[in-house]
Protein backbone atom coordinates (compact mmCIF):
# COMPACT_ATOMS: atom_id res chain seq x y z
CA UNK A 1 0.00 0.00 0.00
CA UNK A 2 1.20 3.49 -0.92
CA UNK A 3 1.50 6.31 1.56
CA UNK A 4 2.79 9.84 1.37
CA UNK A 5 4.83 10.96 4.34
CA UNK A 6 4.65 14.68 4.95
CA UNK A 7 7.48 16.01 7.02
CA UNK A 8 6.74 18.98 9.23
CA UNK A 9 9.23 21.25 10.93
CA UNK A 10 8.63 23.30 14.03
CA UNK A 11 10.25 26.62 14.91
CA UNK A 12 12.21 24.97 17.71
CA UNK A 13 13.53 22.34 15.35
CA UNK A 14 14.54 24.94 12.74
CA UNK A 15 16.23 27.01 15.44
CA UNK A 16 18.11 24.01 16.80
CA UNK A 17 19.25 23.18 13.30
CA UNK A 18 20.42 26.76 12.67
CA UNK A 19 22.52 26.79 15.82
CA UNK A 20 24.21 23.45 15.16
CA UNK A 21 27.92 23.31 14.53
CA UNK A 22 28.93 22.10 11.05
CA UNK A 23 29.97 18.76 12.59
CA UNK A 24 26.63 18.32 14.35
CA UNK A 25 24.78 19.22 11.20
CA UNK A 26 26.82 16.66 9.31
CA UNK A 27 25.84 14.01 11.84
CA UNK A 28 22.18 14.96 11.56
CA UNK A 29 22.33 14.58 7.78
CA UNK A 30 24.16 11.29 8.16
CA UNK A 31 21.37 9.96 10.41
CA UNK A 32 18.78 10.89 7.81
CA UNK A 33 20.90 9.28 5.07
CA UNK A 34 21.14 6.08 7.10
CA UNK A 35 17.35 6.07 7.50
CA UNK A 36 16.88 6.60 3.75
CA UNK A 37 19.34 3.79 3.01
CA UNK A 38 17.70 1.43 5.49
CA UNK A 39 14.28 1.84 3.88
CA UNK A 40 15.53 2.43 0.32
CA UNK A 41 13.50 -0.46 -1.11
CA UNK A 42 10.27 1.06 0.24
CA UNK A 43 10.87 4.66 -0.72
CA UNK A 44 9.65 6.23 -3.97
CA UNK A 45 9.54 9.82 -5.09
CA UNK A 46 9.97 12.65 -2.72
CA UNK A 47 11.63 15.94 -2.09
CA UNK A 48 13.04 18.09 0.63
CA UNK A 49 11.41 21.48 0.14
CA UNK A 50 13.36 24.73 0.16
CA UNK A 51 12.76 27.07 3.07
CA UNK A 52 9.25 28.56 3.50
CA UNK A 53 10.48 32.02 2.47
CA UNK A 54 10.65 30.67 -1.07
CA UNK A 55 6.97 29.70 -1.07
CA UNK A 56 4.25 31.50 -3.02
CA UNK A 57 0.59 30.82 -2.30
CA UNK A 58 -2.31 31.34 -4.67
CA UNK A 59 -5.85 31.51 -3.31
CA UNK A 60 -8.52 30.67 -5.84
CA UNK A 61 -11.61 30.84 -3.67
CA UNK A 62 -12.24 34.56 -4.23
CA UNK A 63 -13.42 36.46 -7.26
CA UNK A 64 -9.85 36.81 -8.47
CA UNK A 65 -6.84 34.63 -7.69
CA UNK A 66 -4.88 36.16 -4.84
CA UNK A 67 -1.14 35.66 -4.88
CA UNK A 68 0.71 35.99 -1.60
CA UNK A 69 4.25 35.54 -0.43
CA UNK A 70 4.86 32.64 1.93
CA UNK A 71 3.38 29.21 2.76
CA UNK A 72 -0.38 28.59 2.87
CA UNK A 73 -0.55 28.57 6.63
CA UNK A 74 1.24 31.23 8.56
CA UNK A 75 2.20 29.06 11.45
CA UNK A 76 4.89 27.57 13.58
CA UNK A 77 4.66 24.21 11.83
CA UNK A 78 5.73 24.04 8.22
CA UNK A 79 5.71 21.24 5.68
CA UNK A 80 9.35 20.75 4.79
CA UNK A 81 9.26 17.74 2.52
CA UNK A 82 7.40 14.68 1.37
CA UNK A 83 8.14 11.12 0.45
CA UNK A 84 6.16 8.36 -1.15
CA UNK A 85 6.52 4.96 0.42
CA UNK A 86 5.24 1.51 -0.46
CA UNK A 87 4.67 -0.76 2.53
CA UNK A 88 2.27 -3.51 3.60
CA UNK A 89 0.02 -1.46 5.84
CA UNK A 90 -0.23 1.41 8.27
CA UNK A 91 1.62 -0.49 10.98
CA UNK A 92 4.67 -0.85 8.75
CA UNK A 93 4.49 2.84 7.86
CA UNK A 94 4.28 3.64 11.56
CA UNK A 95 7.32 1.47 12.28
CA UNK A 96 9.32 3.35 9.65
CA UNK A 97 8.22 6.76 10.84
CA UNK A 98 8.96 5.93 14.45
CA UNK A 99 12.65 5.65 13.51
CA UNK A 100 12.71 8.90 11.50
CA UNK A 101 15.67 10.93 12.80
CA UNK A 102 14.77 14.31 11.25
CA UNK A 103 12.00 16.85 11.84
CA UNK A 104 9.68 16.30 14.80
CA UNK A 105 6.32 15.80 13.04
CA UNK A 106 5.40 13.39 10.26
CA UNK A 107 1.94 12.99 8.75
CA UNK A 108 1.13 9.67 7.09
CA UNK A 109 -1.59 9.74 4.48
CA UNK A 110 -2.49 7.41 1.64
CA UNK A 111 -2.92 8.92 -1.83
CA UNK A 112 -6.52 8.74 -2.98
CA UNK A 113 -6.10 6.62 -6.09
CA UNK A 114 -4.98 3.42 -4.50
CA UNK A 115 -5.32 -0.18 -5.48
CA UNK A 116 -8.02 -1.95 -3.55
Amino acid at each position, binding site marked *: *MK*YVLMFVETEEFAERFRTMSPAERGQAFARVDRWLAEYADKIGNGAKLASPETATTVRLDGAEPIITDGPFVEGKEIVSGFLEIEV*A*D*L*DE*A*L*RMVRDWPGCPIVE*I*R*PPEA*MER
Partner: protein
Amino acid sequence: MSGVPQAELARVLREHAGQLAASLVPLIGDFGTAEDLVQDAVVAALERWPLDGIPERPDAWLFTVARRRGLDVLRREGNYRRKLAQLQWPVPAEPDHRLQLVFTCCHPALSRPAQVALTLRIVCGLTTAQIARAFLVPETTIAQRITRAKRKIAAAGIPYRVPADDELAPRLAEVLTVIYLVFNEGYLSTADQAHSKDLSDDAEWLASLLHTLMPAEPEVGGLLALIRLHRARAAARFDSDGGLVPLEAQDRSLWDQDAVDAAIHILTRAARHHRPGPYQLQAAIVACHAEARRWEDTDWPQIRVLYDLLLLLSPSPVIRLNRAIATRYTSGPQAALAELDELAGSLEAYPIFHATKAELLRDLGRTGEAATADQRALSLTQNPAQQALLGQRLDLFT
Protein backbone atom coordinates in the same frame (compact mmCIF):
# COMPACT_ATOMS: atom_id res chain seq x y z
CA MET B 1 -43.49 -9.39 25.61
CA SER B 2 -41.08 -12.24 25.78
CA GLY B 3 -39.65 -14.24 28.56
CA VAL B 4 -36.12 -13.58 27.40
CA PRO B 5 -34.25 -11.56 30.00
CA GLN B 6 -32.48 -8.59 28.48
CA ALA B 7 -29.19 -9.56 30.07
CA GLU B 8 -29.32 -13.05 28.57
CA LEU B 9 -30.19 -11.61 25.16
CA ALA B 10 -27.27 -9.18 25.44
CA ARG B 11 -24.89 -11.93 26.48
CA VAL B 12 -25.85 -14.26 23.65
CA LEU B 13 -25.71 -11.49 21.05
CA ARG B 14 -22.36 -10.30 22.29
CA GLU B 15 -20.87 -13.74 22.37
CA HIS B 16 -21.91 -14.63 18.85
CA ALA B 17 -22.01 -11.29 17.06
CA GLY B 18 -18.42 -10.44 17.93
CA GLN B 19 -17.21 -13.90 17.00
CA LEU B 20 -19.14 -13.84 13.74
CA ALA B 21 -17.81 -10.42 12.74
CA ALA B 22 -14.32 -11.52 13.63
CA SER B 23 -14.48 -14.60 11.46
CA LEU B 24 -16.13 -12.79 8.55
CA VAL B 25 -13.41 -10.15 8.19
CA PRO B 26 -10.62 -12.37 6.87
CA LEU B 27 -13.03 -14.05 4.45
CA ILE B 28 -14.79 -10.93 3.19
CA GLY B 29 -11.50 -9.07 3.27
CA ASP B 30 -13.27 -5.88 4.15
CA PHE B 31 -13.79 -4.80 7.70
CA GLY B 32 -16.70 -2.49 6.97
CA THR B 33 -18.70 -4.98 4.93
CA ALA B 34 -18.28 -7.79 7.44
CA GLU B 35 -19.36 -5.51 10.21
CA ASP B 36 -22.40 -4.29 8.30
CA LEU B 37 -23.53 -7.84 7.63
CA VAL B 38 -23.30 -8.81 11.28
CA GLN B 39 -24.81 -5.57 12.47
CA ASP B 40 -27.92 -6.15 10.39
CA ALA B 41 -28.18 -9.63 11.83
CA VAL B 42 -27.89 -8.21 15.35
CA VAL B 43 -30.63 -5.67 14.71
CA ALA B 44 -32.84 -8.45 13.37
CA ALA B 45 -32.08 -10.54 16.46
CA LEU B 46 -32.96 -7.65 18.75
CA GLU B 47 -36.34 -7.47 17.02
CA ARG B 48 -37.07 -11.16 16.73
CA TRP B 49 -35.59 -12.85 19.78
CA PRO B 50 -37.66 -11.07 22.41
CA LEU B 51 -40.75 -12.26 20.50
CA ASP B 52 -39.66 -15.69 19.32
CA GLY B 53 -37.23 -16.53 22.10
CA ILE B 54 -33.51 -17.07 21.69
CA PRO B 55 -32.97 -19.65 18.97
CA GLU B 56 -31.45 -22.97 19.88
CA ARG B 57 -28.32 -22.11 17.92
CA PRO B 58 -28.00 -18.33 18.09
CA ASP B 59 -24.71 -18.38 16.17
CA ALA B 60 -26.22 -20.25 13.23
CA TRP B 61 -29.26 -17.97 13.29
CA LEU B 62 -27.08 -14.87 13.13
CA PHE B 63 -24.94 -16.38 10.43
CA THR B 64 -27.96 -17.20 8.27
CA VAL B 65 -29.27 -13.65 8.55
CA ALA B 66 -25.83 -12.12 7.94
CA ARG B 67 -25.40 -14.33 4.90
CA ARG B 68 -28.80 -13.41 3.51
CA ARG B 69 -27.87 -9.76 3.88
CA GLY B 70 -24.59 -10.57 2.20
CA LEU B 71 -26.45 -11.93 -0.78
CA ASP B 72 -28.26 -8.60 -1.10
CA VAL B 73 -24.92 -6.85 -1.16
CA LEU B 74 -23.74 -9.34 -3.71
CA ARG B 75 -26.47 -8.36 -6.11
CA ARG B 76 -25.13 -4.82 -6.06
CA GLU B 77 -21.44 -5.58 -5.98
CA GLY B 78 -20.49 -8.65 -7.92
CA ASN B 79 -17.05 -9.04 -6.38
CA TYR B 80 -18.41 -10.50 -3.14
CA ARG B 81 -19.97 -13.43 -4.95
CA ARG B 82 -16.97 -15.68 -4.84
CA LYS B 83 -16.13 -14.87 -1.27
CA LEU B 84 -19.63 -15.29 0.06
CA ALA B 85 -19.83 -18.68 -1.58
CA GLN B 86 -16.87 -19.79 0.55
CA LEU B 87 -18.56 -18.85 3.80
CA GLN B 88 -19.45 -21.56 6.26
CA TRP B 89 -20.60 -21.48 9.81
CA PRO B 90 -19.18 -22.51 12.15
CA VAL B 91 -15.81 -21.75 10.69
CA PRO B 92 -14.00 -25.06 11.10
CA ALA B 93 -11.00 -25.10 13.45
CA GLU B 94 -10.33 -21.42 12.87
CA PRO B 95 -8.36 -19.66 15.52
CA ASP B 96 -10.34 -17.08 17.44
CA HIS B 97 -10.24 -13.93 15.33
CA ARG B 98 -11.67 -11.72 18.00
CA LEU B 99 -8.25 -10.72 19.22
CA GLN B 100 -7.40 -9.22 15.82
CA LEU B 101 -10.75 -7.53 15.86
CA VAL B 102 -10.10 -5.93 19.24
CA PHE B 103 -6.67 -4.68 18.21
CA THR B 104 -8.04 -3.25 14.96
CA CYS B 105 -10.86 -1.45 16.75
CA CYS B 106 -8.40 -0.01 19.27
CA HIS B 107 -5.72 0.96 16.77
CA PRO B 108 -3.91 4.13 17.89
CA ALA B 109 -4.53 5.73 14.48
CA LEU B 110 -8.20 5.99 15.50
CA SER B 111 -9.43 8.60 17.94
CA ARG B 112 -10.35 7.41 21.41
CA PRO B 113 -14.10 7.97 20.95
CA ALA B 114 -13.92 6.05 17.66
CA GLN B 115 -12.05 3.18 19.34
CA VAL B 116 -14.69 2.96 22.05
CA ALA B 117 -17.66 3.11 19.67
CA LEU B 118 -16.14 0.60 17.25
CA THR B 119 -15.23 -1.86 19.99
CA LEU B 120 -18.70 -1.74 21.50
CA ARG B 121 -20.39 -2.08 18.16
CA ILE B 122 -18.19 -4.62 16.48
CA VAL B 123 -16.71 -6.70 19.27
CA CYS B 124 -19.60 -6.49 21.72
CA GLY B 125 -22.35 -6.34 19.09
CA LEU B 126 -24.14 -3.31 20.55
CA THR B 127 -26.30 -1.26 18.20
CA THR B 128 -25.53 2.40 17.54
CA ALA B 129 -28.72 3.26 19.43
CA GLN B 130 -27.51 1.41 22.53
CA ILE B 131 -24.10 3.05 22.38
CA ALA B 132 -25.65 6.48 21.90
CA ARG B 133 -27.95 6.03 24.89
CA ALA B 134 -25.12 4.84 27.10
CA PHE B 135 -22.96 7.86 26.27
CA LEU B 136 -25.85 10.33 26.17
CA VAL B 137 -25.02 11.48 22.67
CA PRO B 138 -27.25 11.57 19.58
CA GLU B 139 -27.37 8.32 17.64
CA THR B 140 -26.27 10.11 14.46
CA THR B 141 -23.07 11.15 16.21
CA ILE B 142 -22.22 7.54 17.06
CA ALA B 143 -23.22 6.35 13.59
CA GLN B 144 -20.98 8.96 11.96
CA ARG B 145 -18.13 8.15 14.30
CA ILE B 146 -18.33 4.48 13.38
CA THR B 147 -18.69 5.13 9.66
CA ARG B 148 -15.72 7.47 9.67
CA ALA B 149 -13.61 4.99 11.62
CA LYS B 150 -14.46 2.14 9.29
CA ARG B 151 -13.60 4.32 6.32
CA LYS B 152 -10.28 5.15 7.87
CA ILE B 153 -9.50 1.51 8.58
CA ALA B 154 -10.02 0.69 4.92
CA ALA B 155 -8.51 3.82 3.36
CA ALA B 156 -5.51 4.23 5.64
CA GLY B 157 -4.60 0.56 5.59
CA ILE B 158 -5.01 -0.18 9.29
CA PRO B 159 -4.13 -3.88 9.45
CA TYR B 160 -6.32 -6.60 10.83
CA ARG B 161 -3.91 -8.41 13.06
CA VAL B 162 -2.49 -8.81 16.52
CA PRO B 163 0.59 -6.58 16.76
CA ALA B 164 4.05 -8.13 16.71
CA ASP B 165 5.82 -8.73 20.02
CA ASP B 166 7.88 -5.54 19.87
CA GLU B 167 4.72 -3.47 19.47
CA LEU B 168 2.43 -5.45 21.70
CA ALA B 169 2.94 -3.58 24.98
CA PRO B 170 1.79 -0.10 23.85
CA ARG B 171 -0.96 -1.57 21.70
CA LEU B 172 -2.28 -3.70 24.55
CA ALA B 173 -2.20 -0.66 26.83
CA GLU B 174 -4.39 1.09 24.26
CA VAL B 175 -6.92 -1.77 24.35
CA LEU B 176 -6.96 -1.85 28.15
CA THR B 177 -7.53 1.91 28.26
CA VAL B 178 -10.56 1.54 26.00
CA ILE B 179 -12.00 -1.27 28.14
CA TYR B 180 -11.39 0.66 31.35
CA LEU B 181 -13.02 3.73 29.84
CA VAL B 182 -16.09 1.70 28.91
CA PHE B 183 -16.17 0.33 32.44
CA ASN B 184 -15.96 3.76 34.04
CA GLU B 185 -18.61 5.09 31.71
CA GLY B 186 -20.94 2.35 32.90
CA TYR B 187 -19.87 2.30 36.53
CA LEU B 188 -19.83 6.03 37.11
CA SER B 189 -22.74 6.73 34.83
CA THR B 190 -25.52 8.83 36.19
CA ALA B 191 -27.56 8.10 33.09
CA ASP B 192 -30.93 6.50 33.57
CA GLN B 193 -29.83 2.97 34.38
CA ALA B 194 -33.23 1.47 33.70
CA HIS B 195 -33.17 2.64 30.10
CA SER B 196 -29.57 2.39 29.12
CA LYS B 197 -27.40 -0.63 28.69
CA ASP B 198 -25.02 -1.34 31.52
CA LEU B 199 -21.65 -0.72 29.95
CA SER B 200 -19.79 -2.11 32.94
CA ASP B 201 -21.26 -5.44 31.91
CA ASP B 202 -19.73 -5.09 28.43
CA ALA B 203 -16.42 -3.96 29.88
CA GLU B 204 -16.26 -6.99 32.15
CA TRP B 205 -17.09 -9.23 29.22
CA LEU B 206 -14.39 -7.62 27.07
CA ALA B 207 -11.80 -7.93 29.81
CA SER B 208 -12.67 -11.56 30.38
CA LEU B 209 -12.57 -12.29 26.64
CA LEU B 210 -9.13 -10.72 26.46
CA HIS B 211 -8.05 -12.63 29.55
CA THR B 212 -9.08 -15.89 27.91
CA LEU B 213 -7.28 -15.02 24.69
CA MET B 214 -4.13 -13.59 26.33
CA PRO B 215 -3.71 -15.56 29.55
CA ALA B 216 -0.02 -14.69 29.83
CA GLU B 217 -0.60 -10.92 30.00
CA PRO B 218 -0.76 -9.98 33.69
CA GLU B 219 -2.21 -6.51 33.11
CA VAL B 220 -5.22 -8.09 31.38
CA GLY B 221 -5.78 -10.19 34.50
CA GLY B 222 -5.24 -7.05 36.57
CA LEU B 223 -7.93 -5.14 34.70
CA LEU B 224 -10.38 -8.04 34.87
CA ALA B 225 -9.80 -8.35 38.62
CA LEU B 226 -10.18 -4.58 39.06
CA ILE B 227 -13.51 -4.54 37.23
CA ARG B 228 -14.83 -7.59 39.09
CA LEU B 229 -13.74 -6.23 42.47
CA HIS B 230 -15.72 -3.07 41.83
CA ARG B 231 -18.76 -4.89 40.53
CA ALA B 232 -18.75 -7.35 43.42
CA ARG B 233 -19.49 -4.44 45.74
CA ALA B 234 -21.99 -2.65 43.50
CA ALA B 235 -25.06 -3.61 45.55
CA ALA B 236 -23.88 -1.50 48.48
CA ARG B 237 -23.10 1.63 46.50
CA PHE B 238 -26.57 3.14 46.44
CA ASP B 239 -29.14 3.67 49.18
CA SER B 240 -32.83 3.04 48.64
CA ASP B 241 -33.29 6.59 47.30
CA GLY B 242 -30.59 6.03 44.69
CA GLY B 243 -28.11 8.22 46.56
CA LEU B 244 -24.48 7.24 46.72
CA VAL B 245 -23.21 5.64 49.88
CA PRO B 246 -19.60 6.50 50.76
CA LEU B 247 -17.29 3.54 51.20
CA GLU B 248 -17.02 3.91 54.96
CA ALA B 249 -20.81 3.84 55.36
CA GLN B 250 -21.50 0.90 53.04
CA ASP B 251 -23.21 -2.21 54.33
CA ARG B 252 -20.45 -4.69 53.66
CA SER B 253 -22.73 -7.68 54.06
CA LEU B 254 -24.12 -6.67 50.66
CA TRP B 255 -20.75 -7.25 49.03
CA ASP B 256 -20.53 -10.46 47.03
CA GLN B 257 -17.71 -12.11 48.94
CA ASP B 258 -17.44 -15.07 46.57
CA ALA B 259 -17.00 -12.70 43.63
CA VAL B 260 -14.39 -10.76 45.61
CA ASP B 261 -12.47 -13.96 46.35
CA ALA B 262 -12.65 -15.07 42.71
CA ALA B 263 -11.35 -11.69 41.52
CA ILE B 264 -8.51 -11.77 44.04
CA HIS B 265 -7.63 -15.22 42.76
CA ILE B 266 -7.28 -13.81 39.21
CA LEU B 267 -5.15 -10.98 40.56
CA THR B 268 -2.91 -13.36 42.49
CA ARG B 269 -2.30 -15.45 39.40
CA ALA B 270 -1.50 -12.30 37.39
CA ALA B 271 0.95 -11.18 40.05
CA ARG B 272 2.87 -14.45 39.67
CA HIS B 273 4.22 -13.17 36.37
CA HIS B 274 6.18 -10.55 38.34
CA ARG B 275 5.32 -7.88 35.80
CA PRO B 276 3.39 -5.37 37.85
CA GLY B 277 1.41 -2.67 36.11
CA PRO B 278 -1.12 0.05 36.86
CA TYR B 279 -4.15 -2.22 36.59
CA GLN B 280 -2.75 -4.92 38.87
CA LEU B 281 -1.83 -2.25 41.42
CA GLN B 282 -5.22 -0.54 41.26
CA ALA B 283 -6.87 -3.93 41.63
CA ALA B 284 -4.66 -4.65 44.63
CA ILE B 285 -5.74 -1.38 46.23
CA VAL B 286 -9.40 -2.16 45.66
CA ALA B 287 -8.76 -5.68 47.00
CA CYS B 288 -7.49 -4.17 50.25
CA HIS B 289 -10.84 -2.43 50.66
CA ALA B 290 -12.82 -5.45 49.54
CA GLU B 291 -11.07 -7.75 52.02
CA ALA B 292 -11.73 -5.52 55.02
CA ARG B 293 -14.76 -6.84 56.88
CA ARG B 294 -15.25 -3.45 58.52
CA TRP B 295 -14.07 0.04 57.54
CA GLU B 296 -11.84 0.00 60.66
CA ASP B 297 -10.10 -3.14 59.38
CA THR B 298 -8.86 -1.43 56.21
CA ASP B 299 -5.15 -2.07 55.69
CA TRP B 300 -4.14 1.55 55.05
CA PRO B 301 -0.36 1.01 55.30
CA GLN B 302 -0.61 -1.60 52.54
CA ILE B 303 -2.79 0.72 50.45
CA ARG B 304 -0.29 3.52 50.85
CA VAL B 305 2.58 1.25 49.72
CA LEU B 306 0.55 0.24 46.68
CA TYR B 307 -0.01 3.91 45.83
CA ASP B 308 3.74 4.45 46.11
CA LEU B 309 4.30 1.68 43.56
CA LEU B 310 1.55 3.02 41.33
CA LEU B 311 3.21 6.45 41.41
CA LEU B 312 6.48 4.90 40.28
CA LEU B 313 4.76 3.42 37.23
CA SER B 314 2.37 6.21 36.38
CA PRO B 315 3.02 9.41 38.27
CA SER B 316 -0.01 11.68 38.30
CA PRO B 317 -1.35 14.34 40.66
CA VAL B 318 -4.64 12.45 41.04
CA ILE B 319 -2.82 9.33 42.26
CA ARG B 320 -0.81 11.50 44.66
CA LEU B 321 -4.11 12.89 45.94
CA ASN B 322 -5.33 9.36 46.58
CA ARG B 323 -2.11 8.50 48.33
CA ALA B 324 -2.61 11.53 50.56
CA ILE B 325 -6.03 10.17 51.50
CA ALA B 326 -4.31 6.92 52.56
CA THR B 327 -1.75 8.98 54.48
CA ARG B 328 -4.61 10.48 56.49
CA TYR B 329 -5.27 7.03 57.97
CA THR B 330 -1.65 5.94 58.38
CA SER B 331 -0.06 9.15 59.65
CA GLY B 332 -2.87 11.53 60.47
CA PRO B 333 -4.44 14.59 58.89
CA GLN B 334 -1.42 16.88 59.36
CA ALA B 335 0.84 14.67 57.23
CA ALA B 336 -1.89 14.18 54.66
CA LEU B 337 -2.45 17.92 54.43
CA ALA B 338 1.25 18.47 53.80
CA GLU B 339 1.13 16.01 50.90
CA LEU B 340 -2.00 17.66 49.60
CA ASP B 341 -0.53 21.16 49.70
CA GLU B 342 2.18 20.10 47.26
CA LEU B 343 -0.59 19.44 44.74
CA ALA B 344 -2.29 22.82 45.08
CA GLY B 345 -0.92 24.03 41.74
CA SER B 346 -1.81 21.06 39.59
CA LEU B 347 -5.19 20.20 41.12
CA GLU B 348 -6.56 23.71 41.70
CA ALA B 349 -9.53 23.06 39.40
CA TYR B 350 -10.19 19.53 40.70
CA PRO B 351 -13.13 19.53 43.14
CA ILE B 352 -12.10 16.36 44.98
CA PHE B 353 -8.84 18.08 45.88
CA HIS B 354 -10.77 20.79 47.71
CA ALA B 355 -13.28 18.38 49.22
CA THR B 356 -10.44 16.26 50.62
CA LYS B 357 -8.67 19.32 51.91
CA ALA B 358 -11.89 20.37 53.67
CA GLU B 359 -12.09 17.03 55.45
CA LEU B 360 -8.49 17.21 56.61
CA LEU B 361 -8.86 20.77 57.85
CA ARG B 362 -11.98 19.78 59.75
CA ASP B 363 -10.05 16.89 61.35
CA LEU B 364 -7.54 19.48 62.50
CA GLY B 365 -10.24 21.75 63.91
CA ARG B 366 -9.61 24.45 61.31
CA THR B 367 -13.31 24.76 60.54
CA GLY B 368 -13.20 28.19 58.91
CA GLU B 369 -10.63 27.12 56.31
CA ALA B 370 -12.51 23.84 55.88
CA ALA B 371 -15.69 25.70 54.94
CA THR B 372 -13.76 27.77 52.40
CA ALA B 373 -12.36 24.60 50.82
CA ASP B 374 -15.83 23.03 50.77
CA GLN B 375 -17.21 26.07 49.02
CA ARG B 376 -14.44 25.91 46.49
CA ALA B 377 -15.25 22.25 45.82
CA LEU B 378 -18.92 23.05 45.41
CA SER B 379 -18.26 25.98 43.13
CA LEU B 380 -16.41 23.61 40.83
CA THR B 381 -19.32 21.18 40.66
CA GLN B 382 -22.63 22.93 40.33
CA ASN B 383 -24.73 20.16 38.94
CA PRO B 384 -25.87 17.35 41.20
CA ALA B 385 -25.12 14.64 38.66
CA GLN B 386 -21.51 15.69 38.52
CA GLN B 387 -21.37 15.86 42.29
CA ALA B 388 -22.61 12.33 42.49
CA LEU B 389 -20.06 11.33 39.88
CA LEU B 390 -17.24 12.94 41.79
CA GLY B 391 -18.33 11.29 44.97
CA GLN B 392 -18.19 7.99 43.20
CA ARG B 393 -14.76 8.74 41.79
CA LEU B 394 -13.50 9.43 45.27
CA ASP B 395 -14.96 6.14 46.24
CA LEU B 396 -13.29 4.39 43.33
CA PHE B 397 -9.82 5.57 44.00
CA THR B 398 -9.55 5.58 47.76
